[in-house]
């Protein structure tokens, strides 16, 4: 596991990745970062920047094309859906749904997985083999299948989608973080911390956690896109966010029957998903090369 020792660990015990991160922002991929910024702002400010109700059904306004097509107008720039709701408004609110689910699932699943990884790597032995066996079993589950079943039993809701994703997500973090910790455990500063009488918890939180931070940040960034695609897939299948809540996957499902007459209903949410996922993946790739050249195979 010596492979996973990273350069940030050279300063024993007080590795701080932040100056490096800020310095490297100069070479940041600006287009992906601005897409992410727009996405986050849209999610936060959805109430202020939209002019239509995301839920109000108006059958008289159904399937109005986007503004550049015949019959379209600026009052619905991206047109309306089969129920006469403004597509741009629903895309904007859909960003909020995606970001809440991604943030919650990654915070809970990533946090829990990191804790498990730290524990397994630090204590080793039986604890390690039991926890890692659990992680391997979890990784063997096809996530979407598991999530569909869970949502069928618990009923479709945002909370249940988050629960389903979290229950599988932790395992990847546990595996990767544990690998890093095993490398760190061989190093002098951990031995010194132990000799100086630091508690297990203190060593894990103050000495190990800061050193696995770069890896954790890269993994989290790379998985935002993945969580968004999983959520969209679940909503598309009807096992995710229940209508009428605007979710990108659900919007694609609602527009599916109108592909031959109203292309914009499915194209708009499709492009939204693609752009956001692309942006997070590119940022993740960039962070990975910046922070951790040895971890290119995560």
């Amino acid at each position: 596991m010596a492979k996973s020792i990273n350069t940030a660990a050279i300063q024993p015990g007080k590795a701080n990745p932040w100056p490096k991160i800020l310095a490297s922002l100069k070479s940041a991929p600006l287009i992906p970062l601005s897409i992410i910024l727009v996405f986050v702002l849209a999610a936060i400010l959805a109430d202020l920047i939209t002019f239509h109700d995301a839920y109000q059904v108006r059958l008289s306004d159904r399937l109005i094309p986007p503004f550049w097509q015949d019959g379209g107008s600026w009052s619905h720039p991206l047109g309306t859906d089969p129920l006469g709701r403004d597509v741009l408004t629903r895309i904007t609110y859909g960003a909020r749904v995606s970001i809440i689910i991604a943030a919650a699932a990654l915070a809970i699943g990533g946090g829990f997985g990191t804790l498990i990884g730290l524990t397994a790597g630090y204590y080793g032995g039986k604890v390690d083999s039991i926890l890692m066996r659990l992680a391997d079993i979890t990784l063997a589950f096809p996530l979407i299948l598991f999530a569909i079943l869970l949502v069928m039993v618990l009923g479709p809701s945002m909370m249940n989608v988050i629960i389903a994703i979290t229950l599988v997500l932790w395992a990847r973090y546990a595996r990767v973080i544990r690998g890093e910790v095993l490398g760190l455990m061989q190093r002098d500063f951990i031995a010194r911390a132990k000799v100086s009488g630091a508690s297990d918890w203190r060593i894990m939180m103050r000495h190990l956690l800061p050193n696995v931070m770069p890896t954790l940040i890269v993994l989290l960034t790379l998985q935002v896109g993945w969580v968004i695609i999983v959520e969209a897939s679940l909503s598309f299948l009807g096992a995710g966010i229940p209508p009428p809540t605007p979710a990108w996957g659900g919007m694609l499902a609602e527009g599916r029957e109108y592909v031959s007459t109203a292309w914009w209903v499915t194209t708009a949410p499709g492009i939204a998903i693609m752009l956001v996922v692309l942006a997070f993946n590119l940022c993740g790739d960039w962070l990975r090369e910046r922070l951790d050249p040895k971890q290119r195979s995560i």
Partner: protein
Amino acid sequence: MQRYIVKRVGEAILALFALSIIIFLMVRMTGDPALLMLPPDAGADALEDIRHSMGLDKPLVVQYGLFIRDYAHGSFGDSLRSKTPVSELVKDRLPNSLKLVGTAAVIVLLISIPLGVLSAVYRGTWIDTLATGFAVLGQAVPVFWLGILMIQLFTVKLGWLPSSGMGGLDHYIMPAFALGFFTVAAIQRLLRSSMLEAMDSEYIKLARIKGLTEFKVIWKHALRNSMISVITLGGIYIAILITLGILVEVVFAWPGMGRLMFQGIVFRDFPVVQAVVLISAAIVIFSSLVVDIAYAYLDPRIRLQ
């Protein structure tokens, strides 16, 4: 080798076991499982019957035994909507799904390997840029949207290909490409980086010094070693194809397991969804087991670890 096989088989069985327990407990802890197994308008008699046959009046361990026994015998209950046994529905649909996934897998290998090799060999040229751009895009486009886009272009606009159902070979083209797209991108990307590593290695230098043709050096020596990294993840790729297959089947109205499950979700037909999920999960777990064992057989480093 034997130790490795025993360990991997054990893991696979544990995974299936854990999955069955999770499903079993989930169904029982979140309400009345009998209600999940019956249509909402079922009478009290039917409810009593199903409670009895599921053993809901008995201890949990006995209930779990009954659950496993039924599944082991291939009896997955009756569909709430069509009233036919789920096992019959599955028997009709499973071959269709396997045909689609198999076709997609062949397409994936035919496209991703040349693409990965070429982008490494012509590193930095427009071929590399194009192939890498494709790989980055492939991992960001949701398959179901890709399927819809393909229908808009090839069926609605151009009228070249049928958009739904099974039939002749032309019915396979769009679903199989849509299904393979993500995996092509993933394999291409991985193969490119391991090819670059391989071409920098001593044995490739030696092969060149020996005077082998560049074609042989790349397509035989470098590719063979680079494929190891792809085969390592073979199980994951199969799992991805099977899972994405569900979404693709829904888009193209393909009469397979995925569409069966989708209809199950729409009509809240729990026995159908439960059976399809468990069977698909078992196929995923089993195929990654086979890939891992075959891989350990080919590469002694794995089984000695």
